[in-house]
């Protein structure tokens, strides 16, 4: 059976395709070095169009008013510029109400698009642009540690990693935060209190990497200006030992957090990249695996007090779980030596 793969890699070659949701303009070049927050492409996702009625403005029928049009498609206009007229004794004119661009003119109407703030697509990871996609984005290559998460609040930033966790079970409490962490990304633990987010915003931090978070805080987390990334998910789930080991030994290292939201269909997944200089041939992360004995796996589930790691000792056929559900399962030996049976659907192969 095909297995989901989760990456907690100390060093790997990472390639990420970053594309606009709609056509736009790519603003970087191939070979360019980018940071996680550099804008690589822009698009106008929230256009503001204005339809100017020349028939009413000039007091003329459509065919006559077309003769008075002073602009053509593609022209840039400023607020107050005359776009049609003057006509008649009263020298009637139609003016552009805002700065913008003419889209189409004729049939007694002018359609213009006013200038608006474009959507900016950030690089997401620090690296080199290795491929461009005309009007859509680019592929960026980086080398470094890769730690994948399960949830993000949609923000991206980078900064120095400040490790506040002493163990995978740690809670992130308000007393762990202070102004010395300003501009850094913190490695917190389990987040339960909203006041911690208030304090983090006040400092302000550049990012938070957390084990897990109470789901009641989602709305508040979405409003934070900096990225918040959960390694495990929601509730009070301690960080798995593989992710904890990698992150907690990266104190004071430059760290990029792309807390984009998990989307099974687009493939976007929140992740942390800790850049490392490229040193020759580096292995690329494995994208897919088939379950087999000897694989290191992360045990997932819903009501979890821990996120244990283990090794598959045998892949079995249908087995009955404690819930009574019969499903394909594997025997797994946990890090502590304990053996358990886990449905294949609840295992993620660690790479």
């Amino acid at each position, binding site marked *: 059976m095909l297995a989901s793969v989760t990456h907690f890699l100390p060093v790997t070659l990472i390639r990420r395709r970053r594309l606009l949701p709609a056509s736009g303009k790519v603003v970087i070049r191939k070979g360019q070095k980018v940071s996680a927050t550099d804008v690589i492409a822009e698009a106008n996702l929230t256009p503001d169009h204005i339809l100017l009625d020349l028939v009413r403005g000039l007091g003329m029928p459509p065919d006559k008013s077309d003769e008075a049009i002073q602009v053509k498609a593609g022209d840039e206009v400023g607020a107050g510029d005359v776009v049609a007229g003057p006509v008649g004794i009263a020298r009637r004119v139609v003016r552009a109400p805002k700065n913008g661009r003419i889209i189409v003119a004729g049939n007694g109407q002018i359609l213009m698009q006013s200038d608006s703030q474009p959507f900016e697509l950030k690089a997401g990871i620090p690296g080199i642009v290795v491929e461009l996609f005309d009007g859509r984005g680019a592929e960026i290559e980086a080398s470094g540690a890769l730690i994948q998460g399960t949830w993000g609040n949609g923000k991206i930033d980078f900064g120095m990693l400040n490790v506040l966790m002493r163990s995978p079970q740690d809670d992130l409490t308000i007393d762990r935060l202070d102004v010395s962490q300003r501009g850094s990304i913190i490695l917190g633990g389990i987040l339960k209190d909203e006041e911690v987010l208030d304090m983090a915003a006040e400092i302000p931090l550049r990012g938070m990497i957390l084990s897990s978070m109470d789901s009641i805080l989602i709305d508040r987390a979405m409003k934070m200006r900096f990225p918040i990334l959960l390694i495990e998910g929601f509730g009070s789930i301690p960080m798995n030992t593989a992710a904890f080991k990698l992150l907690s030994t990266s104190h004071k290292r430059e760290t990029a957090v792309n807390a984009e939201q998990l989307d099974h269909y687009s493939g976007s997944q929140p992740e942390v990249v800790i850049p490392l200089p490229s040193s020759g041939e580096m292995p690329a992360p494995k994208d897919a695996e088939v379950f087999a004995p000897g694989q290191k796996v992360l045990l997932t589930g819903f009501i979890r007090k821990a996120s244990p790691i283990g090794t598959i000792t045998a892949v079995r056929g249908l087995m009955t*779980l404690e819930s009574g559900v019969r499903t394909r399962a594997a025997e797994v030996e946990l890090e502590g030596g304990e053996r358990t049976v886990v449905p294949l659907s609840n295992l993620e192969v660690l790479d």
Partner: protein
Amino acid sequence: MGTSLIDSDSLLAIDIGAVNTRATLFDVVDCRYRFIGMGIAPTTVGAPFFDAGEGVRQALDQLKQTTGRELIDADEQMIIPARPDGTGVDTCVATISAGSPLKVVAVGLLDDISTESAVRLASTTYAQVVEKLNLLDRRKTSSRLDAILRTRPDLVIVAGGTEGGAFRSVEVMLDPVGLACYLLPESERPEILYVGNSSLADEAERTIGSLAHLSIAPNIRPAIEMEQLTPAQKQLGRLYRSIRCKQIPGVSELDAWTKGSTLPTAAAFGRIVRFLSKVYDPAKGVLGIDIGASAATIAASFAGDLSLGVYTDLGLGPNLPSLLKISKMEDIKRWLPMDMPEADLRDYVYNKSIRPQAIPVTKEELAVELALARRVMQIALRRILRRLPQRKAVSSSMPYFEPILAAGSVLTNAPSVGQAMLAILDGIQPTGVTTVVLDQNNIAGSLGAAAEVNAILPVHILESNTFLNLGTVVSPVGNAQMGSPVMRIRVSGEGDKDTTIEVKYGTIELLPLPLGKSATLHIQPSGKFDVGMGGPGRGGSVRVAGGALGVVIDGRGRPIRLPSDDEKRYEAMTKWLWTFGS
């Protein structure tokens, strides 16, 4: 039935669901179509494969392991038709529900008339209405244009104008749609489905036809008081297929195997429910409910007249958190047979949306899944009942249904049929006398798709035990004090001694009646209770078939009133589960 009556064609049905891809083989055995086997693999529409084909190949590999039948040749192509050496298959059909819901803009004239019909049309497939535009929304053409451009829809449904009615108003609403198509790059233009005043179809073609792919279907609102969605639903199904072919690599290849007949799974599910409604008592309807990861699909059909609802906000997969926006937490929690803090339940919902494929390991997790399923069924049912024409009901808004077909992994994966049955009884709360059938292999959609090319195959499969008859359910409507008598039932079996039981309010009773056997139930409800035999207190006799659970007498009244005290509720729920042997 002799072989001359059927084409002895084998048929492969492939279903690409949000979580699993299934390949199901049907073939003729002893002159009748049989379910031969099924291969299941994880769906590979998303990362890391981004190609539905990989999951299909894996499912076919598994099917080959179980049936020994080679279906794919060395060039990775489906072997169609079957060869004399036993490889390949004669016909392939496919259904799909995977992928993000289609983003739909619904355009109409009046918000509560044509626009609402456009919204209802959208809700017959895997779609999410991201914007509604209508003549009275007080927006300028440029604002409507921006609304379309901002939402970047996959599909725009344009309704409005009764037959022989509004003319200019429809043109006004077509303007922003045409402009949006003009402004968008060709590859990003939405499909347009025109379902308005048919006399304006040519105008729609002139305005939009050269700018985008325009499909025209019969007016969904031919008169103010009349809505007809069925003809447009077929066109919508074709558009869904076309959009998925463009969006998801691997779907085009699959569609070629099916000769362009891939259907949305929900439409195929609706088709089988409609078929059943033509076979069963025309006075009653047939209800089908499929609780999937991408959506909850509910189909109610009366004598071939189908109402279909596909609710992507009620899927148990990535969209599960949307359930928390439309349902109070306490309305989910009340279906749990144990105490669980609200925070844990909410965390569960969000974690499930992250890993929709994960399976409940503990009894507690299983209870949460089934509680969510109950709530989803309740909401889906309430929505479809609003759309049904007035039907004869048992002292409530719930019409008679016979049978009720339930599907979806959350039910079919339940450890016991009793747990599945109790969840269905709680979620749907059927009334009167009905039969509950479980699509234990999740093949109802595949049968609906098969019906398009082979009308006999679904008949044979439905007549076999592929669908599991869980049992006959007797559910009187009414309420009383706990422990008060609800009804007396005498069972006359074949050659067995008659058995009589008294059913008390708040209890569930099971009468053993195995599959293949039948019996007559003589039902006498007490004064306040209506079992659909002519009014409260009126009884009668009914012949019923046996099922996996026999005859289930649900004496909890309608609507079910759960004890408000937590401990008493846990006790009652545990007792009901125990009654079902779980």
